[in-house]
């Protein structure tokens, strides 16, 4: 009985995922304009949040380097725009982000707790200033023009990167590698005693998560005609995914996606309705969310669902 119900549940989940996938895949055929633009934004943040959760969720290492890898991808798309076709730009961005993250990870992942967070935060500013200096000295400009891609093209590109991110995240979570990462987060020394190569596991996952951040950056860069280092390396890109993951809940991969979607949508509404009070209201919503939903929206939903089912069962 139990196994039958479990397979049926899994079937329903897979079915829902397939429907969501098909809707997202065919949406540009039926609608355009605002909905698509909003979805591009949501998918972008979903990628960044899921990629962040892949590493920082289980390992407990709070990375604020998202903006550095996203910005690198963003900038690479701008520098080589026109030289290479769009898909090549996106792959290049992922590869560069991966290599940089390998180096940075090897240097910094021996730092623990808040020191790691501070270093990754500083990394964003470091990369930003290096790019700024290179532009000033070598090209003697501040920004660059970008060849734009049609909204529909951007939408499909970001959708593909999103699907890749989700697949990778699921694979890592399911593998013994994901479990090893979690054991590092729980007790790093005991993980080492269990024969886990702690350094390699941390650095490699950090770098894999950076691939998708870089790719997202490259795709979004083509939405603009002009960019400069201040636009590419924006610290909000580091902080928002962390908040979205907390808002959505991290016990399950649906959490970060839900968090990114709701957060982006609420932000959009607030920004259009109350442009002056936007940040204030957002802050209050966030504080309330952290206070009353310790496991995010997902945790709240699970709690309510359990209550409903429990209530139904009680009278019988």
């Amino acid at each position, binding site marked *: 009985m139990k196994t039958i119900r479990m397979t049926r549940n899994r079937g329903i989940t897979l079915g829902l995922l397939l429907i969501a996938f098909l809707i997202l895949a065919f949406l540009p055929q039926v609608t355009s304009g605002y909905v698509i633009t909003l979805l591009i934004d949501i998918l972008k943040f979903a990628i960044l949040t899921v990629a962040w959760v892949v590493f920082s969720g289980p390992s407990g290492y709070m990375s604020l380097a998202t903006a550095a890898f996203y910005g690198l991808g963003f900038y690479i798309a701008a520098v080589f725009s026109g030289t290479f076709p769009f898909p090549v730009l996106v792959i290049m961005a992922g590869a560069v982000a991966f290599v940089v993250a390998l180096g940075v990870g090897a240097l910094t992942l021996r730092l623990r707790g808040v020191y790691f967070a501070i270093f990754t935060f500083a990394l964003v500013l470091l990369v930003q200033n290096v790019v700024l200096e290179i532009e000033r000295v070598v090209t003697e400009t501040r920004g660059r023009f970008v060849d734009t891609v049609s909204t529909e093209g951007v939408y499909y590109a970001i959708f593909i990167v999103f699907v890749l991110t989700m697949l990778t995240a699921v694979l890592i979570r399911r593998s013994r590698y994901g*479990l090893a990462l*979690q054991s590092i987060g*729980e007790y790093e020394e005991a993980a*080492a*005693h*269990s*024969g886990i190569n702690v350094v390699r596991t941390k650095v490699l996952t950090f770098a894999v998560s950076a691939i998708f951040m870089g790719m997202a950056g490259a795709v979004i860069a083509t939405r603009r005609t002009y960019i400069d280092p201040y636009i590419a390396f924006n610290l909000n890109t580091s902080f928002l995914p962390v908040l979205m993951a907390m808002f959505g809940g991290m016990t399950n991969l649906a959490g970060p996606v839900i968090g990114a979607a709701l957060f982006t949508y609420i932000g959009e509404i607030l920004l259009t309705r109350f442009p002056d009070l936007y940040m204030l209201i957002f802050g209050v919503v966030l504080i309330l969310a952290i206070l009353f939903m310790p496991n995010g929206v997902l945790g709240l939903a699970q709690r309510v669902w359990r209550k409903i089912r429990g209530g139904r069962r009680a009278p019988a």
Partner: protein
Amino acid sequence: MLEIDGLSASYGKVQVLWDVSLRVDEGEFVALVGANGAGKTTLLNAVSGVMRPGSGSIAFMGNKVDGFAPNQIVDLGLSHIPESRQVFTDMSVRENLEMGAYPIRAWKSRRNTMKRVFELFPRLEERAGQLARSLSGGEQQMLAMGRGLMSLPKMCMIDEPSNGLAPLVVRDIFRVLKSLHEEGITVLLVEQNVRQTLAVADRAYVLENGHNVLEGPCCDLAQSEHVRKAYLGQ
């Protein structure tokens, strides 16, 4: 099997081990006893690669292993079961054990190894699906030992398994240690519980303030004036 020669180690400026030597032959059950702060855990950490010793050499099965990373030491077949259990509290008992079998060499046979661990600790099988945080102190110690065995070690270093446990549980733990040894695993046991330790081990070393002070067969040590005064309260 394990040969430590002239080992010194310090934390910053504080030196903890002075010229300590120790050897464990294949198939032996050796104990390392001493008071709190004598440097016993530091010695184990230096062997398993968690800390870098200042000078001296460490060899396992004839190969020099100082400077090796902890996972390399585990790969060679030397398992360190750390002090105060250090189980992964938010993972299930089964997941904890699976993590113990992380080295590729042990991963393939993890199902069979787990069966063996469950035979040694039937309690763990009953609780296989439970989160490790819900286990009692004694069960967590069993889990830590089971996890250490999952890597199919040739030799185990066990750090204070009796720490903070009820006398009855301690007796169980010592019984398991004995049967591990009978199965052919070489054991280096670090303990403060000197009486029970000297009763199960073949040979023992006494460490005081980071120095080797005594060494010999357990039955001799148990008779020695120094040990009786300082550790057995006689």
